[in-house]
């Protein structure tokens, strides 16, 4: 009886939060769409294909331009246009990239003019891989490698930053604390493009310890997996060093706050060893604010790292986004932004739910 009540409450809460998330996503999409449409009379699709349309008036380009314009509702006013665009997005039609195509993995069976299958010498029907410019397909195909990199980096980041943050808080103003503080600051202050270039210059060009770019080296004698890891050392180093500082400081601040609380004094008064006081009583409480960090992890796991991936020429979603920005592929950039916002919203939702798991005081009623 009681349990079912709790479940009903939980479902109610989740529905409420979902509604809020939808509202936020609607707002995000409005901002993204208005950004594109804010200058009236400027049609980014036409602008992109302007040169080709001048050259080729036969209609193929025009057809393409028209299709693109339809997706973005560019022919109507900004309000109707927005509705058209959102409708398309809900239909799963997120637009077509100007510059990327990927193989979908499916194939088209080749037929000749009369509709008969074309066979090769062994009698198999010839096929042609179907390529797609649909941004969702591109995002899906490019985010795998980004995800792997981000996952390794995140695991490393957490397993280094949290223990260091705790040590730094428990030995406040000690040597560890000062070096952690300074290192964390350095990490926060380093621009990724500079740090990446520096690492490349020193460890790749000068010392030759790590490869210069890419994921694999055809001349390498190492097994493929090891070779890949070897290529990933520098980019992962950049990601970890840059993100570790914030987490370390966050852990430290929260730990300090917890260590000053009354229940820690109670734990000490019980006769618990300092180790138990810190890692059992204090740590569980530091976890609570750390849960909020989860909200940011999801986008960083799937969203790629634009600059790092570009510097190290890793063909992930981050590099794609970078390339899209620099070459004016607005459909892709719009979709990428929307995708990241979606991840952020889901992440926030998850972290709110996690709050209830970690902190017994939080009831899933009413929300924050």
């Amino acid at each position, binding site marked *: 009886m009681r349990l079912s009540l709790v479940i009903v409450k939980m479902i109610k809460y989740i529905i409420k939060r979902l509604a809020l998330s939808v509202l936020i996503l609607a707002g995000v999409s409005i901002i993204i769409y208005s950004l594109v449409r804010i200058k009236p009379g400027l049609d980014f699709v036409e602008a992109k294909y302007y040169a080709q349309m001048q050259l080729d008036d036969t209609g193929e380009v025009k057809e393409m331009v028209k299709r693109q314009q339809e997706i973005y509702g560019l022919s109507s006013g900004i309000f109707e246009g927005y509705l058209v665009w959102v409708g398309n997005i809900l239909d799963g039609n997120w637009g077509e990239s100007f510059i990327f195509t990927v193989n979908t993995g499916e194939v088209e069976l080749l037929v000749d003019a009369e509709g008969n299958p074309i066979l090769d010498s062994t009698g198999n029907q010839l096929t042609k891989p179907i390529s797609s410019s649909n941004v969702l397909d591109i995002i899906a195909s490019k985010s795998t490698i980004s995800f792997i990199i981000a996952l390794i980096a995140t695991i490393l980041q957490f397993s280094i930053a949290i223990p260091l943050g705790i040590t730094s808080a428990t030995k406040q103003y000690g040597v560890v604390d000062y070096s952690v503080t300074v290192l964390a600051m350095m990490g926060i202050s380093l621009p990724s493009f500079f740090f990446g270039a520096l690492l490349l210059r020193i460890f790749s060009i000068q010392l030759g310890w790590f490869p210069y770019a890419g994921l694999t080296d055809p001349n390498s004698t190492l097994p493929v997996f090891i070779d890949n890891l070897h290529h990933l050392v520098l980019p992962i180093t950049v990601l970890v060093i840059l993100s570790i500082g914030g987490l370390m400081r966050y852990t430290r601040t929260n730990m300090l706050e917890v260590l000053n609380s009354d229940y820690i004094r109670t734990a000490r008064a019980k006769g*618990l060893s300092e180790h138990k006081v810190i890692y059992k009583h204090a740590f569980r409480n530091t976890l609570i604010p750390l849960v909020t960090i989860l909200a940011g992890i999801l986008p960083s796991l799937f969203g790629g790292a634009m600059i790092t991936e570009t510097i190290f020429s890793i063909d992930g979603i981050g590099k794609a986004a970078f390339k899209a920005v620099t070459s004016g592929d607005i459909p892709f950039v719009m979709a990428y932004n929307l995708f990241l916002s979606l991840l952020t919203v889901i992440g926030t939702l998850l972290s709110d739910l996690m709050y209830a798991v970690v902190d017994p005081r939080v009831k899933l009623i009413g929300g924050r």
Partner: protein
Amino acid sequence: MKNIVDKIKIKRKKRKEEAKHFISKEQIKKTAKENSRIIKQLERQNNRKNVPEEEYITTMRDPNNVVEFDNLHSYFFTDAGVVKAVDGVSFDIPKRSIVGVVGESGCGKSVTSLSLMKLLQSPTGQIFDGEIRYNAKDGKAYNISKVPKADMNRIRGKEMSMIFQEPMTSLNPVFKIGDQLDEVLFLHFPEMGKEEAKQKSISMLKTVNIAMPESIYSRYPHELSGGMRQRVMIAMALLCDPNLIIADEPTTALDVTIQAQILDLLRNIKHDIDGSIMLITHDLGVIAEMADFVVVMYAGRIIEKGTVREIFKNPIHPYTVGLQKSIPALSGTKDKLYTIPGTVPNPINLPNYCYFRDRCNKRFDKCDGAYPELTQVSPTHYVACYLADEMKAEIKAKFKEVDKNAKR
């Protein structure tokens, strides 16, 4: 022209005068340096491991005491200067007794109790000097101020336990009540099984008059009221059958009706356990009801101590008198409650005369002298006031009269 020069001179003088009241940078640096030196030294001593027992085993002055504070100095080494929170405090807690420690907030009563538990906020808070002798269950006497941190864990929670002022924040919010209770048992009785510990915890919850102890056992702290949480804290303090329970203002944060219940509970417990209670409060009424002995503290020092009867019937120090006058009485026709004028002096740079002089309504010429020593007015009654000498004779006479009356 001369006028201007004079003006400048005056201004400069004024600035110099002002500067006297500020701490100069050099001064801060000096104190900070000095502090860190002392702290390091004390911390190093505290953090040692495998210290031979001889270093902190001592003998009690009186084996009938549980705790003897002997000239305790607990200091806080802040950058603004050394805060002498407890400055030469000596008193005893006899076995099976309740000793009340009273005083305004900031007088050092909590610091005294935290020194006994070695829970001063490190690294700034340190026991600087003096001895705290503790008479353990096994018959050994420990000098708490010398016991290293690691060995202190055997005493804390098992031999002496503490009830804090804030029940709302003193329990860890993420663990269930039962887990927090069992933890103490597992820690001090490693051979105890899970089921046994649970039974003991539940029975202890029953002892502190919690209805439905089984249900409370599996609740989280935030699901309980303040009074309930304080009961849980008391149950936790009782779990290991300690020699001494320190109750640091256990009722201050509670409703008046709950306060009475908790005090009743504490009084009953005293009969149940074979130990003593050190009751810290600013409420003389509570002391009058509960305590056997009273210690009155002011600005880090004891100004008067004695049995309850002595302190309430024959208060000598004007501060004690003032405290008593400021208890609201249900009967009587007083329409205005007495307040002691002024505030406690700043604990940094205390003056070298009686700290209460400037608030005292009985101040006389002798008071301009050095800080008065504790003088004995009866076998158990001590007072740090120049009035004591004057009153000694008077009191003796009075006591004789009382005794005579008693004999009659």
